[in-house]
């Protein structure tokens, strides 16, 4: 584990980092991540040095650094502790733990301690919902937090113990695979899918494309685009090079299946990429790994090295002359929007993760303007399976429009959170029974951008035609406050909006403010109308899927859970957004006085 050190010669280490990346502008984000890991933050001086070294305008380097949450531009302490702010972390008491931690270390959330030792803050879901409350310490995941563990962490920090010397049990991450199916239940021999493709002879790639078509495999990242069509588009697009990208920027809160696939099924994923490379003629592939999963990097690098040694990557793969392909791991740095394929490509090129204008689509003009396919981790794992077992076998499972199985990340109020593989078409109720959710009241299917399902709809089925999902399945038991969950979601979108287009940048903020107003007991009927109005604007006017889906949970709550907000409405006519009594709070803090008579009475 790397440590933040008080390096005497920053200039020298910066020069080393830039050289290590060949001073290549496309590797800017990787350079910034290395600088962050070695210096603890990205200083203004570092930005200038990097810009000069790479021959980039300084604004471009600063703009990229300023975009990603894990690249603080000011000192964040030798120990940067980030508490995962998924709704399930909250349900498990993360906010109380954060308070306790801050009290122990005399910290204020979001601020670095005066001795520059530590800082604490919240971060978007870290993908550990099955073993939360979770967090990150200097980028390394800590799980199953409780008061004892927080006390231990506080003591370790007070004793200035380097993170690399902390007890390994703090960092233990379990797979928690609870139900296997056609993918997770089968043993896979590395190289077998590539050999199966090879065994088909010269017409192999064509035949494999036909198998993909037969399989009716659709993208597992949520959008559900036909994989065969996407790949055919890329194959047919003219270009000097083609690229295949595995999207492991699993940022949708509540989703953690890709974490498990990469931890225990990486060969399936890499092999799927290699099969794709053979079909489309890609010489290079990328695994875009979200910053939260940085801890998996060394393990994945070892697997890639092993595969090179086995002749499954590199030149002349599996003995076929001219079949040259290799995979490079590219780290993200805390930006949900980079899960959007064109933003991901921008990020791969070292820039701010801003979704591109479409058309053109990445399959024709993607990475470096060349034909590029971006596929979800799970999709690529299924490609390996289809290469081995054929498309018909795959299509034999599932429903008419949703073939195969789906891996779900189940968390929240249930006895057995974890990874479950189900054939498409499985009803929600069956899943709830399996994971021990006895008193379920609502399920958020597909994360905050998905669908909020009420107990009346538990007969609905997981499928593209009914309940599409990238895999998140967050359960709320009876007695849970749906409004609080929705508040967490709107906060998430406001934090993760890239800020490019007006409706999403401003709309997510306005939505957050209004939901907070309602939760604070100041909402009115007109605020509900305003939420619908904002929802319409974001859905119809936004630049990309983030804005289009940001109002989903709010609109679902308005429609399905009137009880969650109706009692909280302050009045039915009007209440100002400005809370005069709350505004006096600052003055009370400054003066150190809080006179009971100097409060404004709340409306009854």
């Amino acid at each position, binding site marked *: 584990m790397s440590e933040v050190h008080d390096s005497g010669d920053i200039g020298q280490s910066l020069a080393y980092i830039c050289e290590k990346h060949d001073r290549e502008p496309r590797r800017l984000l990787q350079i910034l991540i290395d600088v962050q890991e070695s210096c603890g933050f990205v200083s*203004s*001086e570092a*930005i*200038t040095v990097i810009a000069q070294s790479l021959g980039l*305008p*300084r*604004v*471009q380097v*600063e*703009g990229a*650094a*300023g*975009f*990603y*949450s894990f690249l603080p531009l000011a000192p964040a302490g030798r120990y940067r502790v980030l508490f995962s702010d998924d709704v399930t972390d909250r349900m498990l008491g993360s906010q109380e733990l954060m308070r306790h931690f801050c009290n122990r270390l005399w910290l204020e959330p979001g601020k670095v301690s005066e001795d520059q030792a530590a800082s604490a803050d919240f971060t978007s879901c870290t993908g550990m919902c099955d073993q939360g409350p979770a967090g990150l310490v200097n980028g390394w995941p800590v799980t199953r937090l409780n008061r004892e563990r927080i006390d231990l962490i506080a003591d370790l920090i007070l004793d200035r113990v380097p993170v690399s010397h902390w007890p390994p049990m703090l960092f233990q991450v379990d797979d928690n695979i609870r139900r296997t199916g056609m993918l997770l239940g089968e043993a896979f021999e590395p190289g077998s899918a590539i050999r199966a493709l090879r065994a088909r002879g010269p017409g192999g790639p064509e035949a494999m494309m036909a198998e993909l078509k037969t399989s009716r495999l659709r993208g597992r990242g949520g959008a559900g685009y036909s994989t065969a069509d996407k790949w055919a588009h890329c194959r047919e697009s003219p270009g000097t090079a083609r690229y295949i990208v595995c999207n492991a920027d699993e940022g949708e809160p509540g989703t953690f299946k890709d974490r498990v696939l990469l931890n225990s099924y990486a060969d399936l994923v890499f092999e799927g990429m290699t099969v794709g490379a053979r079909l489309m003629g890609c010489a290079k592939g990328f695994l875009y790994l979200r910053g939260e999963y940085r801890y998996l990097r060394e393990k994945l690098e070892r697997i890639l090295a092993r595969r090179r040694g086995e002749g499954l990557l590199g030149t002349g793969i599996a003995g076929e002359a001219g079949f040259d392909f290799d995979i490079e791991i590219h780290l993200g740095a805390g*930006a949900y929007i980079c899960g959007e394929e064109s933003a991901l490509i921008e990020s791969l090129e070292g820039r*701010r993760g801003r979704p591109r*204008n479409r*058309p053109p689509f990445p399959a024709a003009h993607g990475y470096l303007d060349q034909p590029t396919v971006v596929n979800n981790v799970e999709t690529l794992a299924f490609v390996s399976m289809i290469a081995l077992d054929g498309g018909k076998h795959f299509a034999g499972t599932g429903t008419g429009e949703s073939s195969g199985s789906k891996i779900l990340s189940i968390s929240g109020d249930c006895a057995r959170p974890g990874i479950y593989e189900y054939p498409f078409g499985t009803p929600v109720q069956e899943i709830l029974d399996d994971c021990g959710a006895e008193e379920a009241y609502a399920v958020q299917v597909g994360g905050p951008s998905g669908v909020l399902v009420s107990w009346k709809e538990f007969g609905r089925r997981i499928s593209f035609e009914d309940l599409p999902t990238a895999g998140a399945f967050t359960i709320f038991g009876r007695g849970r406050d749906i409004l609080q969950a929705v508040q967490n979601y709107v906060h998430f979108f*406001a*934090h*993760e*909006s*890239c*800020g*490019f*287009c*007006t*409706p999403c*940048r*401003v*709309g*997510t*903020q*306005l939505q957050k*403010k209004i939901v907070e107003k309602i939760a604070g007991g100041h909402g009115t009927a007109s605020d509900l109308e305003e939420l619908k*109005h904002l929802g*319409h*604007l974001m859905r*119809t*006017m*936004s*630049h990309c899927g983030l804005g289009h889906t940001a109002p989903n949970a709010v609109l679902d709550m308005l429609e399905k859970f009137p009880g969650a907000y109706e009692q909280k409405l302050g009045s039915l006519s009007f209440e100002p*957004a*400005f809370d005069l009594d709350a505004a006096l709070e600052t003055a009370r803090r400054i003066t150190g006085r809080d006179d009971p008579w100097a409060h404004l009475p709340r409306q009854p």
Partner: protein
Amino acid sequence: MGASAAAAIAGTITIDGKTVPFAEGQTIMDAALAAGVYIPHLCHNPEFKPHGSCKLCVVSVNGRNMTACTMPASANMVVANDVPELNEDRKALVQMLFVEGNHICPACEASGNCQLQAAGYHLGMQDPHFTHFYPPRRVDASHPDIFLDLNRCILCELCVRASRDIDGKNVFGISGRGMGAHLIVNSESGRLGDTNMAVTDKAAQVCPTGAILIKRKGYTIPIGQRTFDRQTLSQFQLERGKRTGSGHE
């Protein structure tokens, strides 16, 4: 994209029932401007590469919303543009831009020359509607000839594009994310005065609001005789479109 006014017609689209020809490579906006059909816009300026961030130019194409300034025109598109539903949504977007920044028109020296203000008039905006954010934003007076007032920045990136693509200087960029997205300048101090920006740069002339102001010129043209005192936003933008054609790269 390089389509000039003389380029061969590749096909036609209809906008609100009117048949509009387009040349290969033209966007819906290019074709509309060339035909004298007005689609409201703020971040678009035909002199520069299209951007697509303000979303005022969103039109309905065969029932689907699309951004006119970035969407290539293609044959038989049926475009709805000047319709009450879209204009209501556009007004809401302008209101959003007003409340997220600090736009105090009566005290702003760009008043009357400001396209954001003019868009408000064009769309019949009577009030800001949404709750004001009152964000703390920076004012930079370090440059001898240019004021930078981020209170009025709407993140259209016209200055970014002008400085990069025309001036070849990269004086401006965007940093931050979401509500924290903000204009930055190309100096370690973060001050405009420490960059190589000159008052003669194209980037100094393109701000649609009053975020970039030339010093000592604020009131040379009195209120009442300014751009939008004499013409409407649609007249101004259509004339500009005609003047520059679709000459952006």
